[in-house]
């Protein structure tokens, strides 16, 4: 196994906080998903279970999984912050790692988390979809939402990594991360009031667009109601970023945040 990843895994493997947070999050993930699948309204023309069938389930699960991004961001902040708080990042350089290797080890940790989150997302979607769908003819339709979720989670963790490298302090990083999210919400609200589309280009929004909630109209099976809702939504809908631009912009942001983290590590004393 890669030496740098092995170093990160030793830190993770024996870290109680990591297992407690992950355990709680995974427990809630399964519990909420199970509870959601048990809900059904007996109203004519509305079918809630459509969200758990292929192909819609991929988007539903990607949206649902993105709720847990905060936890992944927290883990990145805590694990990176630990290295600054315990000054072990400094010790690693003294012991022989260079700053580039330290950055790569953090990057590998971020990708590892993203891959695990991706796998959980994929298997949850496949499992739930298999239960609620008769047959697998549509199983691969819309499966790209799993890939979009991967980019989404990578994006959120790239912000977390940058903040923790910038501030070198766990508590401050958590406050700033949540503060940035709230600030962006306010800014988006302001732009929306001014009828400007700038808010769509802000990083949290760009990432969250990748895992947007599936449309409510999907649960409506009555064609007449569906058409009338579609008409009303067409007149009210705001500008939406095309998916290609959204993905490109996300990758641009992720690359930018990773580069800034690398730059800060290289340029600053430890």
């Amino acid at each position: 196994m890669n030496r740098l990843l092995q170093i990160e895994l030793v830190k993770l493997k024996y870290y109680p906080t990591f297992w407690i947070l992950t355990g709680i999050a995974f427990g809630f993930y399964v519990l909420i998903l199970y509870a959601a699948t048990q809900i059904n309204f007996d109203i004519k023309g509305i079918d809630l279970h459509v969200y758990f069938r292929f192909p819609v389930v991929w988007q539903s699960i990607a949206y649902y999984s993105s709720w847990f991004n905060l936890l992944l961001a927290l883990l990145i902040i805590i694990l990176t912050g630990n290295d600054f708080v315990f000054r072990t990042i400094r010790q690693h350089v003294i012991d022989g790692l260079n700053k580039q290797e330290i950055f790569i080890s953090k990057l590998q940790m971020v990708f590892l988390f993203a891959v695990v989150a991706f796998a959980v997302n994929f298997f949850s979607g496949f499992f739930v979809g298999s239960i609620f769908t008769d047959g697998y003819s549509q199983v691969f339709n819309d499966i790209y939402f799993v890939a979009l979720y991967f980019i989404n989670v990578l994006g959120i963790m790239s912000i977390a990594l940058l903040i923790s490298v910038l501030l070198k302090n766990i508590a401050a990083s958590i406050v700033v991360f949540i503060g940035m999210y709230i600030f962006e919400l306010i800014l988006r609200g302001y732009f929306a009031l001014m009828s400007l589309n700038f808010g769509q280009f802000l990083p949290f929004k760009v990432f969250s667009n990748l895992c947007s909630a599936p449309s409510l109209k999907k649960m409506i099976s009555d064609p007449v109601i569906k058409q009338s809702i579609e008409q009303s939504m067409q007149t009210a809908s705001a500008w939406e970023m095309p998916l290609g631009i959204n993905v490109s912009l996300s990758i641009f942001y992720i690359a930018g945040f990773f580069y800034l983290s690398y730059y800060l590590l290289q340029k600053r004393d430890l």
Partner: protein
Amino acid sequence: MEILNIEGISKTYGANIAVKNLSLKINAGEVYGILGPNGSGKTTTLGIILGVIRPDSGFYEWNQKINSLGALLETPNFYPYLSLQQNLEITALIKQVDFSEIDVVLEKLALLDRKHSKYYSLSLGMKQRLALANVLLGNPQVLVLDEPTNGLDPQGIADVRQIIIDEAKTGKTIILASHLLDEVEKTCTHVAVLKKGEVIKKGAINELLKVKRSLIVSSDENERLFELLVRSGLFEKVDKKEDLIYIDLGDNMNSKDVNEFAFKHNIVLTRFEMHEKSLETEFLKMVK
């Protein structure tokens, strides 16, 4: 063989000058002490040569043939939630050393029976010993130690001093920053004294101390002897405190010359004490 060449490094923190145009050359096999009062730039200098602090100007260069280095800078830095074994596993992975060597260094530092204890449960002295075990892991050719006896009890200090001496005997190059002058005097072959970020004295420790021998004398005619000694201008420095006369011999005079000087002037010396000046006396004089 030159191990480390430092050329004109400087580092400032805001208005504070931590290191100013510092140059040093350290050769293989030397035990090089870096002395200086608090804030003199010792740790910053070591931080720079270890790559954790960026100098504002100047450069340093390790010999290309050096492929292993063990260092302790300021306080020990480990993960408190990990055991000693797990913490050293991380270092072993960094240094690309076999995990089996962990027991060897823990044994050397008398920590083997605590290998499964969490780092946070260790005493200050044990933490310092673990830091030294971390330094020695992988049997590095060069050791850089910043205050290695911090937090240790007298027995611990003696043990660490012995380890440094033993490691030096194997031909290792050791760079040791300390404010414990006795420690430096007993372990180092060379020394550089820093003051306000500048090297004010450097060289072989024997050379530094050899030329600074002094005498304490007294006689029944102390006043006359003192005046004659001062007037002669033969000696580097002559002082009188109460009924004792302190003579710094300088480079060209020795104790026999003082005896002959007194005899020539018909003065009988009632006290004649030779003093090899300690590093402490010299150091205090230099940084004053």
